[in-house]
């Protein structure tokens, strides 16, 4: 069976048993560090002291094998602040553990995890920025999404949304002012790449210190597209108001994948069973989105390497257009699909069904030929190989340290795909493969995406076969869901799906009302982008641009 994971060597880790994780063994491992144990829906949460974070996390990382710090969620309660470190394993993401770190209301601070997991660096900066928790021993605790001059922390309870931000012009005179870093060394030059630059795929600002044309130091500066997405979701009702919003996170045709992330978390939270027929439709639509997204990723990567709006870009767009039309037939929309509902999908396949299946089959039949064309033009091109092989190299260790997922991780040989490792939808019933490449360079990442398009096509084909034979009186697209959804109070859940860019996770805490008390988005692009400095240190500007392109970030999802 293709979905079998090649080797699972988690058996040596503490707490691993045949039927899952033994939390008692883990608690024994940590001994007196564990003050209390909480039940979260996805895993147990261990409450620890705020000044023992590094000790606990490094024990868990080294001895219990939790090598993936998926997300850091910060939130404020009436009596305390709380940071939750969502730990998982790259080998088996179903083995989860939440480390809950409460800190006092009057002076919220706890030890930083950035020394243990590099990825925690940005996650904690975000927590500091939006919630206001201080992280001791953090290498660089600054605001990350909001401007340096912002007053207050928007997700904290005493923040007044109506209070205007009054900042003097002097403080804001030139936000892109020359950095002092280059002044120490007369041989280097400081360049602002972005926020307006042809190759930053949106409004990304990369502060770059150049030595000649080589990159001596580099730091991505994000937040230009921050749209308060978590707050927007916290103000919407589960049942109706949140679902249209995920389409806007990763707005480049990955809408249904995002919707599914929310749907999966919320359905598990409210214990809703989705009918199988709807799951098949979801799976098919999600893979169409993945193809569209990967086609565009390839097109824009070619744009960065070829250097102009060239043939490859147009071919990528041309092929994506067909998928886009299929999705339009299904959902009525081209980008903002709003097709999934909690407990199912909005409507059944378009009538006449035969015609729609025919259309999908035509697309699938043409696809190998088109991919062949792209391989001829792009991956087979020697100049392209010269540019992409062995540039922007990311080792598997770095991937895990930075919590990179999706094609970026699989391009470095890290065999991690939520669709297989933590199955949802209809994926575990279908026959397909997880694609990995060992190179870790820009070229591998492109190859992974191209081969994943083929795998997605296989999945769609099987879904079409299933849907075609589905008995007519069994086509249930929607489960029974109460008109107003009020999950029980104080339930917490972190659930993820394999988005187009990687692990797209949602953390929800309910408080008994019809709106989430805390809604946290774990964006794959956010974590992937953190690897950029590692990849481009010492390389030339063109390679840095290529690496940025191969990460395939969408700023709407990075900045949220």
């Amino acid at each position, binding site marked *: 069976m293709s979905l079998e994971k090649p080797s699972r060597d988690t058996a040596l880790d503490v707490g691993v048993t045949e039927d899952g994780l033994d939390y008692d063994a883990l608690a024994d491992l940590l001994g007196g560090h564990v003050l209390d144990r909480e039940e979260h829906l996805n895993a147990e949460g261990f409450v620890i002291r705020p000044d023992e974070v590094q000790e606990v996390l490094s024990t868990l990382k080294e001895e219990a094998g939790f090598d993936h710090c998926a997300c850091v969620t910060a939130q404020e309660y009436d009596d305390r602040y709380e940071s939750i470190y969502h730990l998982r394993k790259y080998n088996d993401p179903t083995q989860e553990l939440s480390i809950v770190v409460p800190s006092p209301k009057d002076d919220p601070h706890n030890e930083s995890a950035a020394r243990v997991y590099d990825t925690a660096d940005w996650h904690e900066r975000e927590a500091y920025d939006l919630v206001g928790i201080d992280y001791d021993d953090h290498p660089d605790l600054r605001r990350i999404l909001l401007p340096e001059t912002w007053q207050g922390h928007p997700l904290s309870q005493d923040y007044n949304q109506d209070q205007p931000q009054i900042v003097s012009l002097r403080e804001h005179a030139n936000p892109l002012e020359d950095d002092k870093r280059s002044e120490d060394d007369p041989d280097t*030059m400081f*360049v602002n790449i972005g926020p307006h*630059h*042809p*190759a930053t795929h949106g409004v990304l600002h990369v502060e770059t210190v150049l030595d000649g*044309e080589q990159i001596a130091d580099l730091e991505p500066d994000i937040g230009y597209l921050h749209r308060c997405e978590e707050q927007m979701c916290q103000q919407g009702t589960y049942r109706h108001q949140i679902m249209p919003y995920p389409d806007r996170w990763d707005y480049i045709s990955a809408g249904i994948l995002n919707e599914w992330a929310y749907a999966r978390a919320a359905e598990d939270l409210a214990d809703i069973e989705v009918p199988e027929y709807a799951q098949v439709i979801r799976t098919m639509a999600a893979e169409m989105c993945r193809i569209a997204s990967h086609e565009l990723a390839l097109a824009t990567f*070619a*744009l*960065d*390497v*070829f*250097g*102009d*709006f*060239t*043939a490859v*870009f*147009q*071919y990528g767009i*041309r092929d994506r257009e067909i998928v886009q039309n299929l999705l339009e037939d299904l959902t009525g929309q081209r980008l903002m699909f709003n097709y999934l509902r909690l407990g199912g999908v909005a409507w059944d396949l378009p009538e006449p069904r035969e015609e729609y299946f025919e259309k999908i089959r035509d697309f699938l039949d043409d696809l190998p030929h088109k991919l062949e064309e792209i391989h001829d*033009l792009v991956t087979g*091109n020697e*100049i*392209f190989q*010269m*540019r992409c092989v062995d540039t922007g190299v990311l080792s598997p260790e770095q991937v895990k340290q930075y919590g990179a997922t999706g094609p970026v991780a699989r391009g470095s040989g890290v065999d991690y795909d939520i669709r297989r490792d933590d199955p949802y939808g209809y994926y575990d019933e279908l026959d397909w493969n997880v694609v990995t490449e060992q190179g870790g360079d820009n070229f591998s990442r492109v190859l992974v995406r191209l081969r994943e398009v083929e795998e997605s096509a296989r999945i769609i084909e099987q879904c079409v076969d299933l849907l075609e034979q589905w008995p007519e009186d069994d086509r249930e697209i929607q489960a029974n869901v109460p008109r107003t959804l009020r999950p029980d109070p104080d339930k917490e859940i972190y659930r993820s799906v394999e988005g187009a860019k990687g692990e797209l996770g949602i953390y929800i805490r309910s408080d008994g009302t019809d709106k989430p008390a805390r809604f946290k988005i774990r964006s794959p692009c956010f974590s992937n982008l953190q690897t950029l400095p590692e990849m481009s240190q010492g390389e*030339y*500007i*063109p*390679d840095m*641009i290529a690496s940025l392109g191969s990460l395939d970030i969408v700023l709407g999802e990075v900045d949220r």
Partner: protein
Amino acid sequence: MQSAPLPETLANLLGLDPNSTAVMIVMSLIGAGLIGTLMMTNTALAGPWAKRKITAAFTDRIAVDRIGPYGLFIIVADAVRLLSKELIVPEGADRPAWDLAPLIIASTALLGFAVIPMGNGIQLADPEVGLAYVFATASMASVGLVMAGYASNNKYSFLGGLRAVAQNLAYEIPLILTGASVVIFAGSLQMSEIVAAQQQSLIGPLPSWYAFVNPFAFVLFLIANLAEVGRNPFDIPEAPTEIVAGYQTEYSSVYFVLVYLGEFIHIFLGGAIIATIFLGGPAGPVLPGIVWFLIKIWGVFLFTQWARSAVPRVRIDQLIEIGWKGMLVLSLANLLLTAVIVGVTV
């Protein structure tokens, strides 16, 4: 096909005395105006219209087709649009140099056409060192690029200027060495002589154009020429996705038009050099010489656009490596072999 240079032809046509200096000066100016206008017309056609149409054909699109037949009036619309834009002078620009750079880029390329024989007696002058003169004027553009890059007071422009120098140094030498192998064949630097030497038959109806006599040199020259005019895979000094627009980042309005114009004239000058020293100049059956000449330079233009649509850009260090380690060695070998062959056979 030896014909008198254009000013003499003009003087004879108007019944004036070709031996009078004053008449010759006036006639030269008129001739220069005619040739300049001809090349500018071609550029106007190529820049706003043909380039779009060609790229569109390569990339499955339609491109301009709203104004006039085949969208041709876009040329007028673009001219009005570009010339009516605001000229923005960057803070801290090095003024005389910043203003002069676009002029140098545009005018030096135009100078080269003075010695190109375009057929039907259209050649402004035919000095004995014609080929050396053409290469000299073609290389002068680099000066303009450096001035533009350095004077703009912009880091991207600066990087673009540096790249332009590095690239031109790496490619100018192979270009000229390959051109020199043609000089060994023809035994002259005079353009009309080089053209005349290509008129005999090689095998049957195939003329002895140097592209057929020495295809190796032709390919080398084509590649070096791509780098010389800065088109893919060698559009490194501009590299839109890396350094925004390189040396031309800060130019707007009229200055931008001049820089852009200069680039296209440069492509056509490259085409004219290739046509003259490798493709038999204006020679060709049935059609008049000037038509053949234009067909050939447009052919080279089409080639550059094709490369631009289909080939990825190399990195600056890779380009320099290809230039110094690959092209230079090959062009030297070519020169040496040509010298030996010509020495043995003649």
